[in-house]
């Protein structure tokens, strides 16, 4: 059953089909051997926890593995992130994180950014459910911090 059939009302706006798909079948969730970036992110408010691992070479992300536990929004968001960053340069990843932040805050996102984000735009439904924005941002903020740290090394 894919919503829309009951009193659950606006739930479909938050949980678009693409979100439920990523939640049920997370992408790039296998652990990475010998990762260059390896971090745990968590949101103590909800107890959501994700383990993010990256292999990086020549200024870009060559392999990514993200797994953890959390609500549908945080899991789908982490899966979308895992799908997006593979093969992207640091600059592209940074730009994507920035676009996602603005998308979730309801700020303007350019057409060029929309092209980069693709399916990730489905996360925008969270804007109507402000308490869930943190769920969607968790893995992105973690990745941003981890990359920033890695670049300093």
């Amino acid at each position, binding site marked *: 059953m894919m919503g829309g059939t009951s009193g659950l*009302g606006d*739930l479909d706006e938050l949980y678009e089909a693409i979100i439920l798909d990523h939640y049920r079948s997370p992408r790039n969730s296998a652990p990475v051997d010998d990762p260059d970036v390896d971090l745990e992110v968590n949101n103590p408010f909800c107890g959501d*926890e994700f383990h993010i691992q990256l292999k990086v070479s020549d200024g870009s992300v060559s392999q990514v593995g993200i797994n953890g536990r959390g609500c549908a929004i945080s899991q789908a968001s982490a899966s979308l992130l895992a799908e997006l960053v593979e093969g992207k340069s640091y600059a592209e990843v940074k730009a994507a994180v920035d676009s996602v932040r603005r998308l979730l805050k309801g700020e303007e996102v350019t057409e060029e950014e929309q092209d980069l984000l693709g399916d990730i735009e489905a996360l925008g439904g969270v804007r109507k459910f402000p308490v869930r924005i943190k769920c969607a941002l968790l893995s992105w903020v973690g990745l941003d911090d981890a990359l920033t740290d890695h670049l300093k090394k």
Partner: protein
Amino acid sequence: MNGSENLIHTFDVEDVRADFPILNRKINGMNLVYLDNAATTQKPRHVIDALTRYYEETNANVHRGVHTLSVEATDAYELAREKVGGFINAPRPETVIWTRNTSESLNLVAATWAEEHVAKGDNIVITAMEHHSNIVPWQQLAMKKQAELRYIPAGKDGLLEMSNISKIIDSSTKIVSATHVSNVLGTVNPVDELTRRAHEVGAVMLVDAAQSVPHMPVDVQAMDVDFLCFSAHKMLGPTGIGVLYGKYDLLNDMSPFMFGGDMILEVTYEDAKWNDLPYKFEAGTPNIADAIATGAAVDYLNNLGMENVWRHEQELTAYALEQMSSLAGLKIIGPKDPTLRGGVISFMHDSIHPHDLGTGLDQLGIAIRTGHHCAMPLVRSYDVVAAARASFYIYNTKREIDELVNGISETAGYFAS
């Protein structure tokens, strides 16, 4: 303040519901089903009117002026203290101290009595099912004093493991602080047994009654507890006001918690003399209006009868446990036996994270709590990071529990592949 004459005198849940204006609200187009009562309860018209009436007719500062309004405000404020004292059978009204909430009451005891009586090598005993507000003040104090913080463990059955309490509470124990009813598991703890053991070794007994005083008859003299803490907002009263009850001699020997107006008898440029109880602990202009409204909340509950309140919640809890246990994929934590618990049911669903469930139920107008319930160590001991919680009060009905159960099914169906 007047106010009890128009109240109902028997317990009829539909009559009760009619007294709560907020129950007419629509949430996402649906009737509100409010099941987050362990977080805070809704307020009856009677309490809201008491607040308004105070500001419209009586507002003045207390214990200061000789003018009519100040006298009336003082009388109303002190009458509310007497009502609250009567509600828990406190031996005298000055053993009832107004605070901001349960947390402040607990902190007050930690910062005054415990600060003066706990020394290096002593221990403080709490339980594994405490709210953060009954853990962190003791952790901090134990660190500062180089004292030991001991826990009475909780079993997977949701009950305290009492078999070892004579070892855990020993001659070096200075204070035992335990929750009467767990805000996560609903467990009604054997505080009488803990109190007896605490007193055997000369320790004082503090009871966090935030989840019990609103729901069941509580008699501080029969319990023989030394301190008892609760909040008004969890028992129909306003936010921002709570109570510390303490035995007179203990309170009388304690140092003040805060300094300022009203808590002193005499001030010179060099020193000050503390006022008598209860004012020694009520520095500054108190929360007059909310104290008076708390008195109105007590009137309302007394008119229902706390035995009736408890019976109603026991019926709802038994019904909810029965209905919820028929749901596939649902796991309820806490005691299975409804007579061992209050109206708090925490649960997890195999295929839905509590926050997704909470959002789904909110679409149906059903308000529950999700998360760690300010009891992270306990929730984690069940190997989960978050749980959903439904908690009941006087205005809840079996029909609402049916709506909860249907709502969980419906939301589970939505997320099922």
